[in-house]
């Protein structure tokens, strides 16, 4: 029997999910790593934009903060259709703590904007990617306390990923126990960002109120850090 049920759905504004990338572009990233990172970002942009599920590009807002000797907000959180992925260059030291703090500020400001404008939103995500360690004198302990408090109070979810050379002990110290850091192999940024876009496709399809576990399960890409 032909199913005669069927009707027009309303046009509702999509629930938003902010993801702020905090990217290490210090001198150690020069050469092949920064080229790979740029290729990975392009792949991420394309994969989100062309996702078969239209809710992902309409829900996920990506922001980009880079850090080296200084911190730069390259992209306010925005749907990927609204911006071209920038090309990054490397050089300088590693003001990682300042970079992550800026990413937290950007994520929280976006959340506040969602709130003020009445938009439904998921808890924002902050994703740190680094190949090194913070400059001497950076307030790692203070950052760790901020991240723990932010995660405990459900203000944001923080994830840290280290490529080869990253100080994984430092990353473990700043991440919340519920979201431990992971290392990915061979500076394979393309695979990493492909995995990340698929993870966010899951997030934007998740049940409301549910936090998707981003813990990487791809053994060829990730080494778990215990």
């Amino acid at each position, binding site marked *: 029997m032909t*199913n*005669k049920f*069927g*009707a027009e*759905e*309303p046009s*509702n504004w999509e629930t938003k999910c902010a993801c702020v990338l905090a990217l290490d572009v210090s001198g150690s990233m020069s050469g092949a790593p920064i080229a790979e990172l740029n290729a990975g970002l392009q792949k991420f942009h394309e994969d989100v934009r062309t996702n078969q599920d239209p809710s992902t590009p309409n829900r996920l807002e990506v922001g980009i903060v880079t850090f080296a000797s200084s911190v730069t907000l390259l992209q306010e959180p925005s749907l990927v259709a609204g911006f071209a992925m920038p090309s990054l260059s490397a050089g300088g030291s590693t003001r990682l703590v300042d970079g992550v703090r800026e990413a937290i500020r950007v994520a929280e400001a976006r959340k506040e904007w969602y709130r003020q404008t009445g938009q439904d*939103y998921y808890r924002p995500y902050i994703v740190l990617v680094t190949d090194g360690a913070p400059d001497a004198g950076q307030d790692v302990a203070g950052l760790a306390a901020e991240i723990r408090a932010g995660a405990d109070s459900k203000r944001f979810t923080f994830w840290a990923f280290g490529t080869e050379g990253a100080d994984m002990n430092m990353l473990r110290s700043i991440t919340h126990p519920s979201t431990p850091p992971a290392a990915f192999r061979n500076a394979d940024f393309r695979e990493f960002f492909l995995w990340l876009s698929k993870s966010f496709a899951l997030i934007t399809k998740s049940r409301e109120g*549910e936090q998707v576990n981003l813990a990487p399960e791809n053994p060829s890409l990730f080494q778990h850090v215990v």
Partner: protein
Amino acid sequence: MDTASGAAEEAGEVGESALTELGDWVIASGCVPGLHSASGGKPLQDACVVHRSSSIRGFVVVADGAGSAPLSHLGAQAAVAHLAAHFAAIPEDIESLDGMSWRATAAAGFSAVQHRLGELAKAEGVALSTLACTLIVLAYAPDAIALAHVGDGRAAYRTPAGEWRALMQPERGEEAGSTVFVTTTVGDDEWFDRHLRTTFLAHSVSAFTCMTDGCERSAFLVSVFSEALGRYHDPNLPYAPFLDPNVSTLLALQAEGVAQAEIDALWAQYLRNGDERSPTLRQQADDKTMILAARTTGASGTMPVSTRTT
């Protein structure tokens, strides 16, 4: 664990999907997995019951298990079955009630469900929060309709003049879809007074619907920009272009003599797959439960009393 099936049996028949034909009403109910459950091999976390007390009176119960609670599917099943059993045992017609007495009646039912889930959690050695679910009951009669709920979901009725109106305001937290659950606390009267929400209307309606939040973006305007407010808001507005054609189809199928089970299957198929005009249904990750009821014209029937659980 015996609670889901056991409690369901207290209320009557237990089936995979449900549709109950009434004398004056035809009711379609569907409870289907969303993409999240379907692709992940996870259990359906929604549950619903349609109970017909007589040909013209009855109630429906809908529950939505929390995605983050590991046994919420069992909580949802137990909650709908136990609440259905509770309401099935109440002798009064809702037309004999008013807003206050309906609230007291509903509160007794929800309190009983809370304690039942507490006992279940204790028996299974699990935290009550693992059974977390929202819960809605909607009772109907010729000249009254009443609703009580804890948490989110949506419900609406259509006036005899054809206007759809919301029957409940979902309780939502700061983040998308965060809400309170019937399991959030037990024995806290202050919490219960704050989070049990009730509606009582002493007049007839021509149709109603009740659903979990997995269907709300298909059947309601829930997030639109308001020029007057200068911001997005949730108007909680039932979407007639979605509801009316489906009500018409439901009545037409009943008039054609299509078997209830077949109508039910068609409704569930639609909720599962949507169509070219309903892509949100097809793409919905959350489980989807929607009950759609419409009043037929003509004399009341004499269908036997039944309860079916999905």
